[in-house]
């Protein structure tokens, strides 16, 4: 009966580590704790956890270093937890291969939602990426086979590039994608780093998909970082 997902908490503050562990255990996850970066590295190799919650401010090694060394040999989902609120650090963590990030302080609902998203993507990673069938979140449906995007069952006409962006974000539903990541995957690796064109395309998409562009339901902005598609799975922020 041991098919509970295992979650490694890398956090040097005992109080925070305790409260996260309590929430996770109450939600039927198995929990391992590490207080140091070096400990985390060995625990990841010996336990192969399903998700790693990695705090960036560790006493021995910088969390970003742990992340990049772990990324060399495993694709285990890593959710970075950080008190650093500057978006540049978030982008850096995401570019180093973090799957998601949480800024302290965060709510329990948010934490659980991110872990569920990470687990789902881990499961999906084994198979080929979903580019067939249908994708639905709220009133938005993407029919990959027929290249159709529907909002509340109404056909929405998107340009080639807009369709690419929407499907890319949909494939990573619930996760934030950085501007650079989207640009590279839509316009190719040699595209200009200037994200203006992406912002303009996104504004057009918003006007086509959302009822009110200032209160988007499907594609949310993470200011200074990138975009995230909302998950059916009660997305909460606080």
């Amino acid at each position, binding site marked *: 009966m041991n098919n509970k997902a295992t979650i490694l908490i890398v956090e040097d503050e005992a109080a925070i580590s305790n409260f996260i562990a309590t929430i996770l255990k109450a939600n039927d996850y198995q929990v391992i704790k590490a207080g140091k970066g070096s400990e985390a590295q060995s625990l990841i190799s010996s336990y192969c956890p399903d998700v790693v919650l990695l705090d960036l401010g560790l006493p021995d090694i910088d969390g970003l270093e742990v992340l990049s060394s772990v990324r060399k040999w495993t694709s285990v989902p890593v959710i970075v937890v950080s008190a650093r*609120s500057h*978006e540049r650090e978030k982008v850096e963590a995401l570019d180093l291969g973090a799957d998601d990030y949480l800024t302290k302080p965060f709510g329990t609902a948010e934490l659980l939602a991110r872990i569920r998203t990470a687990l789902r993507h881990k499961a999906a990673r084994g198979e080929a990426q979903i580019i067939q069938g249908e994708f639905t979140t709220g009133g938005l449906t993407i029919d990959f086979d027929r290249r159709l995007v529907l909002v509340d069952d109404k056909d929405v006409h998107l340009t080639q590039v807009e369709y690419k962006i929407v499907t890319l974000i949909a494939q990573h539903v619930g996760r934030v994608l950085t501007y650079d990541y989207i640009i590279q995957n839509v316009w190719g690796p040699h595209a200009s780093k200037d994200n203006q064109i992406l912002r303009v395309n*996104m*504004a057009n998409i918003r006007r086509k998909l959302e009822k009110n562009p*200032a209160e*988007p339901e499907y594609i949310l*902005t993470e*200011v*200074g970082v990138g975009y995230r598609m909302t998950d059916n799975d009660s997305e909460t922020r*606080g």
Partner: protein
Amino acid sequence: MFEGIRNWMDDTSFCLKPVDMLYTGLIMALATLLAALLNNQFIERIHVAVIYILAVAVVSCFTTGYLPGVLASILGVVGVNYIFTYPYLAFDFTRTGYPLTFATMLIVSIMISALTTKSKEQARLSAIRESRTNAVYEITKNLVTAGGFEDIMSLVTEYISKLYGCGVVFYLGDPSQPTQIQMEGTKEQKEKLQAIEEVPAAARAYLNQEITGSHTKVSSDVMGYYIPVTFADRALGVIGLCGDVRQWEDPEGKILLNMVITQIEMAMEHQRLTKQQQEILVEAEKEKMRSNLLRAISHDLRTPLTSIQGSSSVILESGGMLDEETLRELISDIKTDSQWLIRMVENLLSVTRISAGDTAKVNKKPEAVEEIVAEAVGRIKARYPQQKINVKVPEEFLMIPMDGTLIEQVIINLIENAILHGKSPLPIEMTVKQEKQDVVFSVRDYGEGIASQELPYLFEGYSLKDNTRSDGKRGMGIGLSICRSIVKAHGGEIEVITSPGQGCTFYFTLPKEDTVHEQ
């Protein structure tokens, strides 16, 4: 004025110029003609000498230097002897009385010419002195009112260039890595001063605080003449001249140059002190703002921390004696207070983002207005799921330069204030409008409004008196004062329109173009 000095200084007393020779010849010829006409009929022969002496005086007046006068004197003596005395049209200085007569005539002529020339020379020198005094006076006058180093430098280069008709370069700081350079003069002069080998000579003047360059002992192989500008043994910069060295190397010119340089040094020191003083004032102002903020915050933090500490120790010490409902209440109080603390800390983080840079300017990037508004509203909705908010943004896509996180914080603070203090069941309206040069963000609530006596202190953060503030209103001032700091740092304005019972509208503007530069 400058022209006069220059022309006069070109002349020297002991050289004979062709134009002077011409004058001398002409005047002497006229004198001879006049004497010939008057001879025999009106005057006695010997009086011809007087006409020649007059001619010598006239020559001395119209020519420069001693030589023309002397030459005219000799010509006069020769003329009288040759033409007007017996034997006519032949030289004879030996007849009785002649040596005395002609020697006297020669001496008188030379003396008159010397006196005339000397008085002219004196007049010339005093005119030069006067115009130089005027020049220095004018520079001094203008330097006093100069605003900033740039102003001083352009004034100085322009003046010196006019004064000596030379090319001028002014390096502020070490010439090898100057903070500023100002040049004046003709294109050719400027090119000379810009040559590669010039800079080391200038740098040497700066480092050793000595005059270097052409016609000096140091680095004399370059085109420019470099004078260090120092104050109290501290080098401030270097002035380089390129042109006719005689202009400023002759004693008078040198004194003038020294006077001008001294004026420049004083003006620059004055400028430096003024600048320093301003910086100290700005720093003091910042420090004051910070300490006010700190005071207000520590006061505000104490309340929720006391409540958290109290509630949690009650729970711990009760030993399970509390009934379910009380326990729940205490814990939810802890949660509310800690959430409030979190928001306060978020605000404080924004403040550090503004003051992190030395220039107190924010790090601006073009951001989509609708994205910022959407994220702010999203966060508010997560905190207050029951609250209704109507959001309106312009149909056209707007990208304006801002620090997105900070502006988001401003919007969150304003909406949160509207929710907490407005207490109205009607939805809050968040609107963005585009104007000619600005984008206007406004947050409207239909609640209690703000009493007019509170308005002056609204954005100050710390002036709210403790007794006028209920617990529910704590932190409002700080939030708004942070909003104001953020908006001001962006070059915008924040204001409120309110009347009691009518609700209030907070609005702030952001310039569309990045026009805020260092002041």
